[in-house]
């Protein structure tokens, strides 16, 4: 039988084993020759550094010089599944680096080292894997972190979905005063580093769910430079938090409960890009509940709000930063929104999946 594109072979023949594959196969997860080739050709060539290239079971990190007195080690881990794997403004590789870098940064930490686990479905294109690892390498360079250990597993076709990436990161942060979700205090100002909802709309569009075209691009970005610059000028930050899944509203409800305070937002002040607003109106979505991957909330004493705003706006990642509300004390912790008409309503956490309305 002749396969399209291949010349018909005459007589008996003994094909050579395929040495250069276009797809990930089960053998790539066997720990044998194919695994080594994959590590060398795809991972080390892009993400390589002496710690990763050592090829031992673990990376040995010498922190004796690095960890100054009074600093604490900060650790975070995050698994990344996203559909589609490539979207306007990023891909799962960039997301997997930024997700963990930002989780560390939100504790006021400077991230230093990452590890990554790749769970890859048999049949995944090597060329796609290379693109993903390329963008991880770029994001690591941007965030000034090193990937020091990695693992790859391959599942049978249909047992996973393309590629899942789990990353773990470590960095260090000052131990006091603590920056955490329970530190918001009455009198604090609430700032956001840029417009809300771009990532959520970009993903919905990449899934082909919009039914129309928009030019919204995901905001996926490492925030540690922004955090570092801000802390250098305004050390008095009480809370950093990145409003990822569940969006701004869910994140601030969490903080109001952790800190037992009421947070009052001014709807007019919340930056939302016009295309995001229009997409939300058409689909019946609320931008305050859409995911962001390169934005952060900053809560700090009101007297530092304008200095913080200036520092944030000086960085391209924060050039649309805004003061969006303040923290007060009320009998019960809640998130209130002063609407554009001057009325007030309560914002709740997102419950379940955000669903478009029927009409």
């Amino acid at each position: 039988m002749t396969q399209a594109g291949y010349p018909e072979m005459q007589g008996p023949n003994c094909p050579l084993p395929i040495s250069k594959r276009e797809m990930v196969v089960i053998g790539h997860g066997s720990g044998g020759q194919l695994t080594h080739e994959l590590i060398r050709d795809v991972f080390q060539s892009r993400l390589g550094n002496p710690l990763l290239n050592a090829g031992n079971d673990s990376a040995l990190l010498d922190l004796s010089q690095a960890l100054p007195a009074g600093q604490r080690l900060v650790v975070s881990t995050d698994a990344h599944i996203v559909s589609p794997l490539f979207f306007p403004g990023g891909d799962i590789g960039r997301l997997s680096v930024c997700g963990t870098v930002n989780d560390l940064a939100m504790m006021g930490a400077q991230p230093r080292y990452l590890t990554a686990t790749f769970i890859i479905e048999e049949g995944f294109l090597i060329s796609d894997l290379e693109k993903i690892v390329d963008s991880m390498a770029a994001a690591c360079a941007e965030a000034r972190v090193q990937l020091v250990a990695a693992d790859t597993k391959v599942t049978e076709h249909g047992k996973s979905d393309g590629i899942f990436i789990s990353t773990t990161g470590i960095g260090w942060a000052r131990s006091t005063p603590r920056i955490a979700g329970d530190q918001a205090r009455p009198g604090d100002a609430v700032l956001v580093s840029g417009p809300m909802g771009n990532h959520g709309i970009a993903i919905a569009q990449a899934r082909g769910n919009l039914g129309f075209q928009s030019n919204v691009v995901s905001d996926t970005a490492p925030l540690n430079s922004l955090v570092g610059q801000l802390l250098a000028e305004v050390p008095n930050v009480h809370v950093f938090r990145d409003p990822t899944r569940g969006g701004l509203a869910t994140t601030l409800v969490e903080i109001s409960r952790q800190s037992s305070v009421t947070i009052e937002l001014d709807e007019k002040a919340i930056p939302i890009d016009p295309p995001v607003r229009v997409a939300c109106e058409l689909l019946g979505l609320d931008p305050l509940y859409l995911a962001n991957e390169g934005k952060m909330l900053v809560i700090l004493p009101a007297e530092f709000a304008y200095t913080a705003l200036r520092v944030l706006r000086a960085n391209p990642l924060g050039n649309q930063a805004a003061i969006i509300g303040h923290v007060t004390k009320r009998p019960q912790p809640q998130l209130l929104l002063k609407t554009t008409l001057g009325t007030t309503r309560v914002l709740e956490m997102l419950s379940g999946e955000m669903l478009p309305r029927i009409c």
Partner: protein
Amino acid sequence: MTTLTNANFRSEELTQKLVASIRAITTRPWNIMEICGGQTHAILQYGLDQLLPAGIQLIHGPGCPVCVTSLESIEQALKIARQEDVIFTSFGDMLRVPGAGQDLFSARASGADVRVVYSPMEAVKIAALNSQKKVVFFAVGFETTVPSIAQSVLHAKRNGITNFTILPANVLVPPAMHAILSSPENRVQGFLAAGHVCAVMGYWEYEPIAARYHTPIVVTGFEPVDILNGILMTVQQLEAGMHNVQNAYRRAVTREGNLTAQGIIAQVFEPVDRNWRGIGLIPLSGLGLRPEFQTFDVHEHFELGHETLAESPLCIAGSVLRGVATPHDCPAFGRQCTPGTPLGAPMVSSEGACAAYYRYQRVKA
């Protein structure tokens, strides 16, 4: 795009002027029902109820398609979705509506192929791409969703796509208004008619209702200025003892409506009796496929049966949907019943009165 972002319909200044006019003419209390869940959502999202004089009470009507779709239809949807060779398609809201036990989300988690579509034409496309599967679309919604559903059936018929069917559950607004106004416990004195429904159907259908029940009906849009304008025109009529049908949504609605859309609806569908969740059977209040389109009715392909099912005994959704009670009257509201664990359908969709109250009014600001 200008109309979508046009700040005029959300202008604080216009809003304040309208509120002042409403205050100036209101001499006694009035109960006004907004039919449409989209209006309920906007009223609570913008806190418009906080701006009205104390005597004006807004009653949230049954115009949330998710809320009024009968338990039987949802159980049938679940039964169909669980079949091995079926791709079940639906608007997103319906996935979280509890049936007697499960919802479509849990059916999906258990392996059913349930897909959210934004338009019924997507379901027809899925059918064309999966000829070995039976693709079923859950046809819910008011007159607003019907033209596109009719269009999808016509498209499937023209193109010989025989593996596409619908589960018919569409409902009509005018019969529900009759049911509310003729009920002995009715409190509604004026209606804001649903602007999007009227964009399709016009408002000639409402003239006999306004005359028969001596109730003013004002066709109303969805932006704050639209809604306050609709309320102002309704109160003006009530204060003057008038009961006309008026149009406060002229930029989208004419008396005749969209005749092309009405033609497509009449070509494919005909009125049938329908059960409304929480309200009961309303004669000729639903749409079924005409005999020549029967092969597109999922009932022709599956034995679905007609069980009688019981709602949670705690849920007072029926009274809420008829405007006789508010969600705050319900002992389960915010306790056993939340958007995460809804006991009744009005807690599911953001258009549902209970969910809207939960999101915007659970804790009085």
